[in-house]
């Protein structure tokens, strides 16, 4: 019997067929991988290729001409300006909200979290509509704003507000679970060692949430650049003035300047890709910095 068992183990065919309890047979594995990759290729890679192909179809020069044209530059400038305003505000908000929610117990917390989530679920079109109803010259605050010569919609402030609205949850959403999971022991330790609140935040909390923060900023940034529906309603589409990059793309598309439209799109897509690359790099750094804790 013993000998037989030994031969069994040594049987290469059986050894090859041996698999872990948590594994599927190879053919199942490869089928699943195949199906998943086909799905992703159809839904993610192909649209990406369309944009890149459209942008570079007529060569680099045409591409460059399209994105260095004054109206395109104005759109790029505006989008960057909006991002420069919106991302820091949402960053401060995200950190503040996450701090309040993760470090303290108070009543109404689930409501607060739901409120922060709301922009995920509200149609951008409704967002635009709300601001027109409020700030349009036929709206409630419109006459007052006009009397004080202030412009909100059809100007940069309106664009900033709707984009801030739409991108509000990204950083907060990233930080809240992270900070909840980290608890507050390290902060308490810092306080017992005599550090002030700000110093505790700066030296202890911030380094701990750094990666989550960066990821949140990256996503917020991408969404802020790409927001379309709400901006379309409140921008007024003044060429070279209140057209953001996505609106400018639509304008170009509607002017039958497809290559130019795709060129500016490719810029945004490129940004998205860079964003994703940065994110992956960030995660890779994170993993490397977290030395493997002796496992199993």
């Amino acid at each position: 019997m013993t000998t037989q068992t030994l031969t069994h183990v040594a049987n290469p065919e059986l050894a090859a067929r041996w698999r872990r309890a948590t594994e599927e047979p190879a053919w199942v594995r490869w089928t699943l991988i195949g199906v998943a990759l086909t799905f992703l290729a159809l839904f993610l890679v192909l649209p990406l290729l369309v944009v890149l192909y459209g942008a570079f179809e007529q060569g680099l020069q045409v591409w460059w001409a399209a994105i260095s044209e004054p109206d395109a530059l104005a759109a790029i400038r505006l989008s960057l300006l909006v991002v420069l305003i919106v991302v820091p505000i949402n960053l401060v908000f995200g950190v503040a909200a996450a701090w309040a929610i993760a470090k303290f117990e108070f009543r109404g917390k689930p409501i607060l979290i739901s409120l922060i989530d709301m922009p995920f679920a509200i149609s951008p079109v409704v967002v635009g509509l709300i601001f027109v109803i409020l700030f349009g010259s036929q709206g409630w605050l419109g006459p007052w704003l006009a009397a004080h010569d202030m412009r909100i919609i059809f100007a940069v402030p309106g664009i900033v507000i709707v984009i801030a609205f739409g991108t509000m949850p990204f950083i907060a959403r990233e930080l809240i679970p992270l900070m909840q999971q980290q608890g507050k022991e390290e902060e308490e330790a810092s306080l017992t060692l005599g550090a002030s609140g700000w110093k505790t935040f700066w030296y202890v909390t911030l380094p701990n949430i750094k990666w989550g923060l960066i990821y949140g900023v990256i996503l917020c940034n991408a969404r802020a650049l790409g927001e379309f529906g709400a901006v379309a309603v409140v921008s007024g589409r003044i060429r070279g003035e209140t057209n953001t990059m996505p609106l400018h793309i639509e304008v170009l598309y509607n002017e039958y300047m497809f290559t130019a439209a795709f060129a500016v799109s490719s810029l945004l897509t490129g940004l998205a890709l860079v964003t994703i690359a940065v994110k992956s790099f960030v995660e890779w750094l994170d993993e490397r910095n977290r030395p493997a804790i002796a496992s199993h």
Partner: protein
Amino acid sequence: MKKILRNTLVGGLATLLAGSVLADNITLLNVSYDPTREFYREYNRAFGDYWKQQTGDTVTVRQSHGGSGSQARSVIDGLDADVVTLALAYDVDALRQHAQLIPENWQSRLDKNSSPYTSTIVLLVRKGNPKNIRDWDDLVRDDVAVITPNPKTSGGARWNYLAAWGYALKQNNGDQDKAYDFVSKLFANVPVLDPGARGATNTFVQRGLGDVFIAWENEAYLSVEQLGKGQFEIVVPSVSILAEPPVTVVDKNVDRKGTRKTAEGYLQYLYSDDAQRLAAKHYYRPSNPEIAKEFAEKFVDVELFGIDEVFGGWEKAQNEHFNDGGHFDSILENIARR
């Protein structure tokens, strides 16, 4: 931000210095509809030169384009337009109805009902006219797919709709019910309703959808010339509508900004010979008959009817056909029910 601040400052200064000899930098905002992009791009340059010569002032004209109705809405909601150049009088009149931005008599302030150029509605078909489309009648055939934007959101599409309706009235001795049936059949052949004229052009030209595209004359020519040389043909129907896209100064805005003089000059200049030729170049029919003659072979002579004679003016047409509960709504409902 900076620009808006500058505009306000410049506007204020302009008021202060009105009549002085100092040359100004003036910025105008022209809020227009979709198909005028190419025309106004060129016209703005021409006007800039002309105005500099006349007054020494430097004028920069900013453009905003979109669906005619949506553009009017933006101006009503506070978009700071100095002039509007929209697809139809109803949209311009909305500025008066909803926000009193312009006076009652706005349409009589400029020549030709304030329409410096006109256009009409034609049919665009694919090369060789494979479905053999000759006139409006062919659009209700079962085997024909028709592309038009949504009349609810697109000014051009309202002209399309009214042109078809007018044709049917003419064929049936003014029988409104028959016209209703005709337009119903036509829209039953429509697979896609883009919100704007440009979107519809893209659908027909780029995406290859549909057999015939009801379009502004100038859009049709643009497609033939620019988008796909040799891929499309224009079919001029037996009768069509005289489309008059009107222009006006937005009084409340120009008075506040102190840009009235320039804005009025901007619109006046549309009637100049140079501007009329420029309009013709971009396939708009010049309203000046002299200039129109120069381009006689460019624009096919077609029997045109006006909106006032057939539909009793825009107000009435809008109420009967396009407002909620109007004919168009009921047509869509009937199609959906089938």
